[in-house]
Structure formats: structure tokens, C-alpha cells
């Protein structure tokens, strides 16, 4: 899927504007709960009401049955000096549907009096204390940084520095700034130098976002990803689990999505063909293609490759068919394109003999790449938010990442047309320009990828087209459910793919 991330500026602004109401809890008299105080009585109940409103809460369509505190790790207690009491909670969330239980972490703070900057994070007033999401509280977030530097163990939580990485400071953190853009995790920038990222939904196993950059470092290919400096590890259900990771903050970077939107804006305002427009994105896309190819090569070196034979290919295509079938139940307009899409799925099943697979990024799009002054970086290796942990660890064709980027160029090109205030019927000339921008960027990306990998993704047109169609189907379902205004983007793409398949050989090399 392509970037649900808007430009970071806008998100920051939205947060300041106060999408959540400020706390109106009456100020309560301070108390001094000595020692390891029990958790406030109604906490579980309050969190059950609060969780579904959090962006990172994955099971929005399920009804919560019960929330229980599975584990609690006391972080700090300075209530007596007017400071916070910080507790890291691991929540077990059960649902009324009886389906799988999910686990989330919520670092909470409790204070007698809340500084204004923390007001947006208020959860509730409980037992005379204000309970809030602690990620905005520097006194609590800095503990993780300093704890990692000191190698502390807090209850079940082990704070460990990454071997060989630059040392973290043990004290003296001055600024802590939550970033407001993530989906499945929450990040805080400390001293404009460190990124502390909490994986909100806890799934047993080492998080891919820690594992894959490490793997790249092992094979000497750590360029193109942020440096890992430390992590917070615990156990869940008797298995290791990653709570948080500290990376070097990639300062002075812009995400690919905002860069691409800037380029499209320039193009549509400029009245020049895309190959002559000053803001042409092709050279950035080419460079990005090289970067992705280098990261793939590094992951292949570090974790190996396998060859998927006919049987495996049929299984993968089966998943695509299942996804399409499910999508058709939700979006009836897909019915008329199903036959065409099936042509391409069948073509892959019958004529692709083997596919090389390896560990990949898994959820690559323009919002997951950062342009720094000297490089493109890939970030957030967690994989698709909805995928299970086992899903994420699967080897896949690197073309799946390529397809993700190609779809993302298509999103960026057409995003303007769904923005509020845009005419319902877009100017056909502008649409043509956007199509051309998308195509140029896609071609340049593939060319850059080919320069480094030695193979052009377009040389596997059947597989690439199937992956593009599958991705668009996934997007169509996601957008219809969560962002209906965006649904027209993948639906238009599916329409186009179906038309192209119906009108000619799906083997055409110039499919982009």
C-alpha cells in the first residue's frame, strides 16, 4: 500500500491544532503513594475505552472484550518531588469475537499535576492522579536512552546497547519530541539525535525492524538504513519480544512521499512536459532504484535466497486469488475486472517456472524512504502492518518491494486529484501529465534498480504485473475501509491493469 503518511509538517501541525481535546479533568490534590504502588483501580477499564482511538491499534474493526495488564515494569517514581511515575504496561487485549488475543505496550505516566505540553496525551484521571501516554514526557523517554547506555535491566525489560554501535549518553537529554506520523509504532526524537521507536503491537520474536538492519550491518551493507544503537527486549508468552529500538535519528531528511508530491505539484503548475519540467523526479527515482537494489543485495547476502518452484508459485498465486475474492465481497465493482486479473494470475501459474525469493522490506513505499543530503535510506522494516509475525519473516520475491514502490509512484502522481477542493472531474490534460510523471518515475526506478542488481524488474513482466495487481487489490480494500476518499486511486489502477491485460499480451515488456 502506498503512503498513508502525509507530510510530517502537516501532521505536526494537526497535533498542535489539538485533534484531541485538552484535558478538562479537575485538578486533584496530590498524594504520596509510597513504594510500588498498585495500579489505579479503573486503569484496565479506562484503557479499553482509550485503545480503539489510537492510530496504532490494529484491531479497529473488532470489539474489545477485556483488557488486562499482562506485565508492568516500573520505570521511575518521582511523584514525591513533583515528577512523574512512569510504568511500562504490556496489555493483553481480548475480543468479543473470541479470535486471537493481541498484545500492546503502553508506557504510561502518572502525575499530580500535568505540564501543558503533556495534555494531548491524557488518558484519564485516576485515584487523584492524571494518567497519560508517556511518550511526550522527556523525563520518561530519556530513561530508555540512558538505561540502554547503562545496560540496565528493569524487571523483565532488558535495555541493551547494540554491540559496536556508537555509545548513547547516560544523562543530560534536553529535548524529546514525539513524531506524529507512524501507523504501527510510536517514535520520539531525543536531542534531535536519537530516534526511540516503540513497537506498539507486541508480537513474539525479534522485530524485523531490528533484525534486518542488523543483518545488513553483518554483511557490510549497512548503508541505506538508519544505524541501530540499542533496543529494549523482554519476553512475552515465554518468547523474546522487542519493545523498542533506538536508531540514529536521520536528521535533515525528507520522506520520499513529500518529495514526490512536490515534484508533481511543480509539474501540474508548470505546463511543461514531464521530461522538461524542472522538478522532474526521474533522477531521484533512479537513485532510489539503485538504493533498493543495494539493500536487496545486502539482505540476500545476509539471509540467503531460495528458489521457489512451480508448487510454491501456485501457492503464492493462490493467495492472490484469495485476496481478490475477499476484495470482491467488499467492493462489488471489482467483479467486472476479476476475469482480466485472473488472466495474469493464470499466466504466472502456468508459465513462470521459478522465482528467487529472499528477505525483503515487505511494505515499501515512498513514505518508507528518506532522502538525506547524500543518500536515500529505507526505514521501517516491520513489514505490512496487518501481517502476522510469521508472514513478515517469509522470504518473498524482491519484486514485491519493487511493485510497492511502483504503486507508490502511481499514488503520488494522482494524489492531487483526490485532495479536498479539487474539481470532481479532473482536467484531462493534468491527468495525462500525472500519468506521464508516474510512468517516467517508474521507468527510472526500474532502470536504477537494474543498474545495481543487473536485472531489470520489467524483464519479469508476468510476475511484476501480478504483484502490481495484487498490491492494488490490497490497497483497494484498505482504502475502502479506512480512507474512502483514496479508494479511487487503486481502483483506477486496477481498471487500467485489467484493460491492458484484456487488450493485449500481458508479456509486453513496456508494461509500465
Amino acid at each position, binding site marked *: 500500500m502506498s503512503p498513508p503518511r502525509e507530510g510530517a509538517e502537516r501532521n505536526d501541525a494537526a497535533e498542535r491544532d489539538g485533534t484531541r481535546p485538552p484535558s478538562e479533568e479537575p485538578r486533584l490534590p496530590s498524594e504520596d503513594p509510597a513504594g510500588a504502588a498498585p495500579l489505579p483501580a479503573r486503569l484496565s477499564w479506562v484503557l479499553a475505552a482509550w485503545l480503539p482511538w489510537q492510530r496504532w491499534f490494529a484491531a479497529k474493526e473488532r470489539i474489545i472484550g477485556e483488557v488486562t495488564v499482562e506485565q508492568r515494569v516500573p520505570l521511575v517514581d518521582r511523584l514525591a518531588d513533583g515528577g512523574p511515575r512512569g510504568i511500562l504496561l504490556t496489555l493483553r487485549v481480548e475480543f468479543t469475537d473470541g479470535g486471537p488475543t493481541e498484545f500492546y505496550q503502553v508506557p504510561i505516566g502518572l502525575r499530580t499535576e500535568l505540564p501543558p*505540553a503533556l495534555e494531548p496525551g491524557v488518558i484519564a484521571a485516576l485515584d487523584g492522579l492524571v494518567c497519560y501516554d508517556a511518550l511526550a514526557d522527556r523525563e520518561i523517554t530519556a530513561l530508555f536512552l540512558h538505561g540502554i547506555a547503562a545496560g540496565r535491566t528493569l524487571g523483565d525489560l532488558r535495555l541493551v546497547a547494540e554491540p559496536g554501535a556508537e555509545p548513547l549518553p547516560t544523562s543530560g537529554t534536553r529535548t524529546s519530541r514525539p513524531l506524529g506520523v507512524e501507523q504501527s509504532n510510536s517514535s520520539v526524537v531525543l536531542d534531535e539525535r536519537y530516534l526511540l521507536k516503540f513497537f506498539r503491537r507486541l508480537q513474539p520474536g525479534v522485530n524485523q525492524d531490528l533484525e534486518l538492519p542488523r543483518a545488513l550491518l553483518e554483511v557490510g551493507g549497512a548503508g541505506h538504513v538508519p544505524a541501530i544503537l540499542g533496543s529494549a527486549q523482554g519476553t512475552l508468552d515465554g518468547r523474546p519480544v522487542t519493545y523498542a529500538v533506538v536508531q540514529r535519528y536521520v536528521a535533515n531528511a525528507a520522506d520520499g512521499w513529500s518529495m514526490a508530491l512536490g515534484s508533481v505539484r511543480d509539474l501540474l503548475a508548470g505546463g511543461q512536459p514531464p521530461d522538461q519540467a524542472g522538478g522532474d523526479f526521474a533522477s531521484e527515482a533512479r537513485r532510489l532504484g539503485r538504493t533498493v537494489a543495494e539493500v536487496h543485495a545486502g539482505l540476500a547476502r545476509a539471509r540467503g535466497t531460495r528458489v521457489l518452484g512451480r508448487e510454491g508459485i501456485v501457492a503464492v498465486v493462490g493467495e492472490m486469488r484469495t485476496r481478490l475474492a475477499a476484495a470482491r465481497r467488499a467492493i462489488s465493482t471489482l467483479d467486472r475486472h476479476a476475469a482480466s486479473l485472473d488472466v495474469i494470475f493464470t499466466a504466472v501459474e502456468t508459465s513462470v517456472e521459478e522465482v528467487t525469493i529472499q528477505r525483503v522490506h515487505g511494505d515499501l513505499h515512498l513514505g518508507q524512504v528518506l532522502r538525506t543530503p547524500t543518500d536515500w535510506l529505507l526505514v521501517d522494516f516491520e513489514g505490512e502492518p496487518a501481517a502476522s509475525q510469521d508472514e513478515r519473516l517469509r522470504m518473498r520475491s524482491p519484486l514485491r518491494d519493487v511493485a510497492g514502490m511502483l504503486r507508490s509512484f502511481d499514488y503520488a502522481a494522482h494524489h492531487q486529484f483526490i485532495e479536498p477542493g479539487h474539481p470532481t472531474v479532473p482536467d484531462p490534460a493534468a491527468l495525462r501529465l500525472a500519468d506521464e510523471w508516474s510512468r517516467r518515475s517508474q521507468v527510472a526506478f526500474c532502470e536504477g534498480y537494474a543498474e545495481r542488481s543487473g536485472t531489470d524488474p520489467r524483464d519479469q513482466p508476468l510476475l511484476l504485473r501480478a504483484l502490481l495487481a495484487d498490491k492494488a487489490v490490497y490497497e483497494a480494500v484498505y482504502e475502502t475501509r479506512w480512507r474512502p476518499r483514496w479508494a479511487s486511486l487503486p481502483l483506477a489502477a486496477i481498471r487500467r491493469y485489467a484493460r491492458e491485460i484484456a487488450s493485449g499480451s500481458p508479456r509486453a515488456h513496456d508494461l509500465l
Partner: protein
Amino acid sequence: MSTPDVAPPGVPTPGRRGGPAHSLALTPDADWFKRAVFYEVLVRAFHDSDGDGSGDLRGLRDKLDYLQWLGVDCLWLPPFFDSPLRDGGYDVRDYRAVLSDFGTIDDFVDLVDAAHARGIRVITDMVMNHTSDGHRWFQESRRDPDGPYGDFYMWADDDKGYADARIIFVDTETSNWAYDPVRGQFYFHRFFSHQPDLNYENPRVHDAMLDNLRFWLDLGIDGFRLDAVPYLYAAEGTNSENLPATHAFLKKVRRVVDAEYAGRVLLAEANQWPEDAVAYFGDPQTGGDECHMAFHFPLMPRIFMAVRRESRFPVSEILATTPKIPSGAQWGIFLRNHDELTLEMVTDEERDYMYAEYAKDPRMRANVGIRRRLAPLLDNDRDQLELFTALLLSLPGSPILYYGDEIGMGDNIWLGDRDAVRTPMQWTPDRNAGFSTADPGKLYLAPIMDTIYGYQSTNIEAQLATPSSLLHWTRRMLHIRAEHPAFGLGDFRELHVSNPAILAFTRHHIRPDGTDDLVVCVNNLSRFPQPVDLELTLHAGTSPVELTGRVPFPPIGDGPYSLTLPGHGFYWFSLERAEDSEPAAPTSPAPEAHEAPEEEPTP
């Protein structure tokens, strides 16, 4: 111009008959070149004092009041030496004579005197790599291989040597060797074939060139732009650029300047990537023991690219990959000069892009570059002209303005070679643009006459009369820059913003009295209005004051500092601490933000 034996009335001449006279020296000041705004002016193009159709030294002297008013600190004069003028004077025939068109040695001393009286310094080009083939040394060398000059040039029996040295003037030259029928040997030349390279393996060449430098330093000149320095030495198996022997010779030149002429500067013209160019500053342990200054060539095309792409990254990238320079050194930065907008220091991909964007007509190209002036390059868009100038005046380095760009002069791409950007200065809407009283047919080049850039609409007189003109705007900016030593002496840190169209940075300098001069520059490279959040919380409590109007902006708080900028807009803020607030940390918190790069720059 005829040799004036008698000075015109009203012009004081220093008493230099009968002995080597010096012009008045300015107060010694070791750092002047770091704070200075340079102004490149072609003697031929500025003002003609005697009506022969060519500008001259007296004409330039007559216009010094204008330059003082504008606010420039140092003039850079491309060569005015005796020359057959087959390469704009970079083909020197006699290092100790003024080209007769331009005047005399006396005129030069008068010019330096008059400039110094206005607090303006003067530097000129010294062409060290080669001479004209008309130079007496070459004539002697070809005639008498065993004579005193026989070994002054790089002679060989064939044209096979130094095969890895690239050819620079690809439009005209096919080899770096030329055959001389008189001597019956080939001679080496990195530039035009009429410019034989001097043989620096010969110590007598060192002595001869040092004596040439001393000659002008004795006359009071404030320094030299050392032309084409990377090429002084050649060696087999190398590309014959930036060789250790070249650096050793430059250190020798520097020792002479330091010992005999303190306060004068050496500016290296080394069209190289920054990591090679920094070598021309010499040893950082000593604060620099080669050239005081070097041009930062790759920055300039990237400013154009960044604005055209509406993305700061081309500029951020080149600055992030520019190594630290010694404490006593300074970059020279520019947008345009008398040469083509050189594209040697960009990748092939970037070059194609620049050609496509800024030189659509092939006639706009010259060698590996674009021969256009600033205003036509920017479609005469005032907003962009201001943005580019603001960048030039605020990025790290001493800015070098090119004559005429302060009024937005145009170019004439139909003229040969690089003459497109060397037309007469446009003073008035009168005949010959007020540049000369000569018969228009006698002018060395016709002034620009098109409807937009022509002298009848674009000239200094008209812009002086219009307070909102580019000229007045440029002058105001120069004066603001002069009030803030941070622009010249301060460190540079890029501020980290997530909007790719915004280039924001701080310049910070601690004055001798211990107070901070901290300037925040925010530039919108996009044609559209843009928002930006600046992370300035370490300066919480201070109120930014916008420098062009002294308007105080809201104080910085605990959160991001939000600004909106109009298309191609920019702000310069001074962060002035409120009297009663805590001492603010002077710089942003990422201490290594601009250390030497960890990775190789992208070529």
C-alpha cells in the same frame, strides 16, 4: 589608449616618477577576505575614460564611488596585462606591463590608491600555468633550446606524454600537445594551443614567477586569484591535476606572501571537487599554508539545480560532503562570472539536467558549461534573483558578484566564445549605455540592446532613480550582510526540516567581546508558498528579528517554530536574546552535523 604622459586635471597621481612607488596601504587585517564581498569587474567592460571604445583602468577608477556606494569590499580584476588577447587576457605576453588599451602602470597605482581611499581592496588574476606564445620567454625558448629560457616550457619529441591529462577546452582543442616548427618539438598546453604551459620542474621558472608576484605586491595590490593552479605540474600515470609538487610550489608562494606582504591574499582557481579543492588551503594544523581562499565550484550549479527542482538536496548534499577547511581559510562562492557557468563539477546526469533547464538553445552552451548571465538564466524573475542573491550572501564563503548582475544585465548568446557575458556595463540609457563616448562601431563589443535587458531599460541610472530596483535591493542586502560578521566568519549548520523545498541554516559567530551573532536563514526553493517547522527550542525565549525590516517575530517557544514563506521567499533572522532570559545555547544540538562526510560524495 595612448600613453598618458600627463595626468588629466583633477586626478591626483602619487609621486612615483623616478622610483618604485606604492599605493596607500590599508590597515593590516588578517581576516578581511573572510568578511569581504568581492566584485568581479572586467576592466574592458566597465567604463571607457578616453573614448577609444574599450574600458580602461581610469574609467574604472572614475566609477569607484559607485562601487563604494554599492558596498563591495574588494575588486577582482581579470588580467589587464599586456596580451595578444586570444583568451580574454589569460594569455599574458608581459607580466609587468598593462595592456595599452587599459592604460599604464601609473593608472593602475592610481586605481589602487583611489580604491584604498574608499576602503576597497583590489586583487587581480595571476596566470601561472602558462603564458601566451607571444611571451618573450616562449619566443626565446623555441629559438634557443640551450639558452636561458630553453627549459622554461614543457617540450617533448612526440605528443604521447601525459596521455591521462584531460582536454579542457573540448570545443577547440583535440590534444594537449602542439608542434612548434621553429624548435622542431612538441610543447604541452592544458588550455589553448597558443598558451604553452610553463615548466615548473625548472626552479628558474619559480623564481621568475615569484618576481612577477612581487612586482605587483610592491605596487600595492591586495592579492591574486591564481588562475588554473591544479595544472602547474604534470606527471606520467596521473591525470596531471592537483599533484603534490603543485602544492609544494604554492606553499612556497605563500611563504613569500606571509614573509614579505602580510595581509595580502591568494585565491586558488581550482575547478575541482571540494575534497580536492581543500588541499589548496594547505595544512589545517597551521591554519592553512597554501592559498587563503579557493573557489567552491560545485556549489554554484547545485544552487540552480536545487531551485529548479524545488528541493534543497542538491545544495545540502554538496555542503555536507564539503570537508572542513583550515581556520585561516575561506571559500569563494559565486553565481556567475566571466567564464561559462561551469558544469565540470557535476555528474553527467546533472549536466544533462542543467543543459535542459538552463541552456535550451545549444548556442547557450560553451565548453562544458552554460554561457549566460544570472538574470536570463532565471528568466528575469525578480523573486528568484533575490532568492539566489540571498543564498549567495548567506551560504558559507565570501560571495563574489559579477559586474552588471546587480542590475540584472542580460547576455548576447550570438557573440563568440564567452563574450556573451562580457558586454559593456550599462550605466545610462544614453549612447553606448554611457559606457563610452566612442563611435558605436568602435566599441569592443556592442552593449545589450534587446527590449528586456537592453541598456535603454536596464541601466544603473534608471535603477538608482527607482527605490524598489534590484540595484537598491542588492545594496541593502550587502549592507545588512556587513552588519553581521556571522555571514563571513560564522560557522554553518543546516537546520533539519522535513519540507524538502526549504533550505534552512544558521550562521553563528562569537564576536571578540564574547557576544553571539546568530543568524537564521530560511529559504523557500519552491515557486509555491511553503510551511516549515524549525526546531529552535534551544533558543526558546529569544525573539527572531527579521533583518531587512527589523520586524520582531514571535518569540521561540518549547515547540517547533512555524513559519510560512511565499514562493521563492526567504528570511534572514537575527536571534537576539531577551535581556532577562537564560543564556541560550548558541548552536543547534547536533554537534557533528557538518563534520567531514562519512561516505564518499556522489560523483
